[in-house]
């Protein structure tokens, strides 16, 4: 089932940029685990959940895409490959939902040899976009504050 989840590096970076949604898996000592606690709690666990000694909660990739769509207005579109299974045929784009012509990928697709790889590469790109924006946001906050 691990292929449906973000990897550990992505999970840590997502936490750093503010992802704190309930999750149903964790990374503990570099290992991917399903904590027992979550079984009876359909709301899952958040990074603020302190009882578990875990490095970080592990979000599902679909949760990550929801987060970027809802929090940052970035929508990922993974395009059909029309049954073509040659290398790097899975392609995706990142669209800003409010700025029609904003391009984040230099008019190139983010690709992957498998669907999962394309998803993972898209998550890396989304994180990169937001990390670049964060200094500007912090700058604006401090300007507004003073």
């Amino acid at each position, binding site marked *: *089932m691990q292929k449906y989840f973000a990897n550990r590096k992505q999970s840590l970076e997502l936490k750093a940029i503010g992802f704190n949604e309930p*999750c149903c898996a964790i990374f503990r000592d570099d290992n991917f685990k399903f904590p027992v606690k979550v*079984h009876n709690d359909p709301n899952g666990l958040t990074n603020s959940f302190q009882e578990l000694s875990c490095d970080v909660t592990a979000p599902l990739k679909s949760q990550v895409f929801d987060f970027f769509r809802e929090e940052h207005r970035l*929508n990922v579109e993974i395009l059909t490959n029309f*049954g073509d299974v040659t290398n790097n045929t899975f392609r995706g784009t990142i669209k800003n*939902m409010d700025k*029609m012509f904003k391009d984040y990928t230099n008019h190139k697709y983010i690709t992957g040899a498998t669907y999962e790889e394309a998803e993972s590469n898209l998550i890396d790109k989304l994180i990169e976009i937001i990390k670049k924006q964060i200094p500007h946001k912090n700058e604006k906050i401090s300007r507004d504050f003073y």
Partner: protein
Amino acid sequence: MKNLFCYFKQSLELKEIGLEGECLGLYLSDSTLSIVQNISHNQFYGQVCQAPLKAQVFEFFREKYGCDVEIKAKRVIRVGKAEGYYCMIFTPNEEFFNWDLGRLHSTYEEAENACIDKIIEIVKTK
């Protein structure tokens, strides 16, 4: 997290059309979803049903039936802002790609559910 899983009726229909393997969720009743891990159909009997992730369902359709789904945000040309979502289904004979044309879903989840319902219908009629 509930919106990441298929709802109960879909889960039952997916079981009927052959979605097997491990799932993260389990419906204990038509409205009670429990998150478990790596549960397969044959481990449970009676009134329970596996709850697959929507991502798992799209993978199943892609790999078993060659059906691809694209969910796109539709923007208002003048304003540039997204006003909703629409979806397209690509089947090997391309007869359904515009089945949802003109219909706009207010949320992404709603568009995903519409796609899953439609693909179940397509597979059932095959």
